[in-house]
């Protein structure tokens, strides 16, 4: 990793502190990932990306910036990558999945803020994330109160554009969101000096749709019984989707899927037959948050799908590729993004329907509702999800946790008991 020292210096990073962070990841990754059996060959690419997480891709970003390109950091699956790429910029989904940054985030945020917000704030203010340091602009959004107010503090450290996400799904909200997309478009044109033309946007829509299609294909293969890939591996792929080069990422996911298709044909699974199939629903799991998947998959079950922002919400639904005017394209994007069902919307029956549909499609034995501590929208929404699942006779376990390892033993006991309950 030391080869990248110059790069990190050029990004004004805190090298000493960053070194501590870099030392954590390899062993953690080895423990959680490399210890798995029967991993697909196609995961090698993703292992490589993680093993050089703060080097390979940031170097590409630097090359892009050195030749005059811009990098735009985002935090939410509602922010459209299409516009960013159409402006000739690179979009990076910033994470905030590491406990390492939480304490630093707490320096400026209340302790009872969700770990995701504390973590990304810590990452920025300690200058220890090369992705954050590579961004020419951050794009925030008004999903939850915690994030909405955090942007105001973030402004002290970086340029940030905040999009006003509606929280209902009426026609008026659809139009309001398309208007927000137009404002973002102008901001991006101003940042990059590039005009977003219908043909550029059309290409970008195709580019991002291809990425979504590859992920859809991957998840489709997870419906097979026995499942050909572990939940941890699939989660890693989705996490990497947020910051990797979209074109290369798409091709690597598709080759992974080719391999998995062979496995499915041969009836070859990654776990022994009869392994319980679990769907995880709830709050996002930003890299390197593999905590719950690791607990579930070392307790004798398989995670077969995530109804989360680092799961189906990221890639379900495509944008219409056949439109030729900006107005129509932006409206189509607004429609696509507003189909995503996040707990910050009211009402949010669509999410409940999604969960029940996914349980059927993936032939899941049970659902684990994952709630990051202090995430109020998802915590409140649990009650209605629980009631609906109970009516359908689908077992559900609620797990509220943060990024620390303190409660792993307790969670493991609960997960084990839940799996035994499934019979």
């Amino acid at each position, binding site marked *: 990793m030391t080869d990248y020292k110059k790069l990190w210096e050029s990004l004004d990073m805190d090298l000493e502190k960053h070194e*501590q962070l870099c*030392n*954590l990841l*390899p*062993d*953690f990754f*080895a*423990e959680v990932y490399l*210890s798995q059996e029967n991993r697909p060959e196609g995961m090698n690419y993703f292992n490589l990306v993680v093993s050089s997480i703060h080097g390979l891709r940031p170097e590409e970003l630097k090359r892009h910036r050195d030749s005059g390109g811009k990098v735009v950091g985002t935090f939410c699956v509602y922010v459209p990558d299409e516009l960013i790429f159409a402006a000739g910029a690179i979009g990076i989904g910033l994470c905030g999945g590491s406990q390492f940054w939480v304490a630093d985030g707490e320096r400026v945020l209340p302790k009872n803020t969700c770990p995701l917000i504390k973590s990304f704030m810590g990452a920025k203010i300690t200058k220890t994330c090369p992705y954050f340091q590579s961004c020419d602009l951050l794009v925030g959004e008004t999903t939850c109160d915690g994030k909405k107010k955090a942007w105001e503090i973030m402004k002290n450290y970086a340029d940030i554009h905040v999009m006003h996400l509606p929280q209902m799904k009426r026609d008026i909200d659809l139009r309001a969101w398309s208007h927000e997309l137009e404002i973002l478009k102008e901001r991006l044109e101003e940042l990059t000096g590039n005009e977003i033309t219908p043909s550029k946007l059309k290409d970008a829509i195709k580019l991002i749709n291809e990425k979504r299609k590859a992920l859809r294909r991957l998840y489709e293969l997870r419906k097979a019984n026995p499942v050909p890939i572990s939940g941890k591996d699939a989660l890693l792929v989705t996490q990497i989707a947020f910051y990797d080069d979209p074109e290369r990422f798409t091709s690597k996911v598709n080759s992974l899927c080719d391999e998995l298709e062979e496995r499915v044909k041969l009836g070859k699974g990654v776990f022994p037959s009869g392994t319980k199939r679990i769907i995880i629903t709830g709050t996002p799991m930003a890299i390197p948050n593999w905590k719950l998947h690791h607990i579930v998959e070392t307790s004798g079950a398989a995670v077969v799908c995530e109804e989360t922002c680092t799961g189906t919400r990221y890639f379900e639904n495509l944008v219409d590729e056949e439109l030729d005017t900006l107005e129509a394209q932006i409206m189509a994007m607004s429609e696509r993004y507003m189909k995503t069902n996040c707990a910050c919307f009211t009402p949010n029956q669509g999410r409940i329907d999604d969960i029940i549909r996914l349980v059927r499609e993936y032939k899941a034995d049970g659902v684990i509702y994952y709630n990051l501590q202090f995430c109020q929208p998802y915590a409140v929404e649990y*009650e209605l999800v*629980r009631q609906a699942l109970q009516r359908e006779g689908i*077992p559900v376990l*609620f797990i*509220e946790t943060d990024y620390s*390892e*303190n*409660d792993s*033993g*307790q969670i493991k*006991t*609960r997960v*084990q*008991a*839940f799996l*035994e*309950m499934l*019979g």
Partner: protein
Amino acid sequence: MAHYLGIDVGSVSTNLVILDEYGDIKEAIYLRTQGQPIKAIQEGLKILSKNAKNWDIRGVGTTGSGRQLAAVIAGADVVKNEITAHAVAAMKEIPDVRTVIEIGGQDSKIIILRDGVVTDFAMNTVCAAGTGSFLDQQANRLGIPIEEFGYYALRSRNPVRIAGRCAVFAESDMIHKQQLGYKVEDIIRGLCQALVRNYLNNVGKGKEILPRVVFQGGVAANVGMKAAFEEALGMEVYVPKYHNVMGAIGAALLAKEANVERTKFRGFDASEIEFTADSFECKGCSNHCEVVNIRMEGKVIARWGDRCNRWKVIDD
């Protein structure tokens, strides 16, 4: 006759039971763990060894937060989580049980059963308000032996409302009520009601509590808590005779069910073997894991605490 040993190592108590092949309880031992689980397990085995010639142990089950440790020391055939162990034991006692309330030293749980199958459960999270340790502490503070605590509550006619959401607040509220001059039995009954309210709103949240209700765990010995549950639920709450060792009973039943050909039990002499635990900080990476060695006569037989399995000992 075949016998089965169950061991439940919790944060506060370590319990051992011996069942015969009909599932009847032949011995039940309740010991304080006192932060020394190895010593407590060995102490228990030693007590049981006095009648060793009566026992033909064919299977051993362990449960509780110290289940791995107990499994290594005694030699276990089945290692199960405490939800399953408690549910199995409650069903043995009351076959048509539909709700199990279990309050132990530092945790509390609810288990919902329908037709003899666990259909739902919940445990307290990091907060230990309302568990045995807290009641112990309050009894101690009021200078009342914990065994008599519940009877004080039963004598109360006008319970005082105590804030039960958090042990810290409950304690300051109790002190405040004492200073206002309320009678100690009214405060104690109020405390029992507060803890029951807290339990039902947190651990029992969203759960359909149907009879029959079995109340077990160390706190079930507290008649004040039993009465407060009955009052709040409007139904009879049954406390089994061996309520404080139900986890161990469940573990023994699970060992019996497993029906292993040859038990891994080390024998009651395990109480004489020198087991020690020591730890070191691994310098292998910056995680600096605190790795625990469990040694039998100096030889490492198990290790845990390392995140990467680098130190894993493969035991035969």
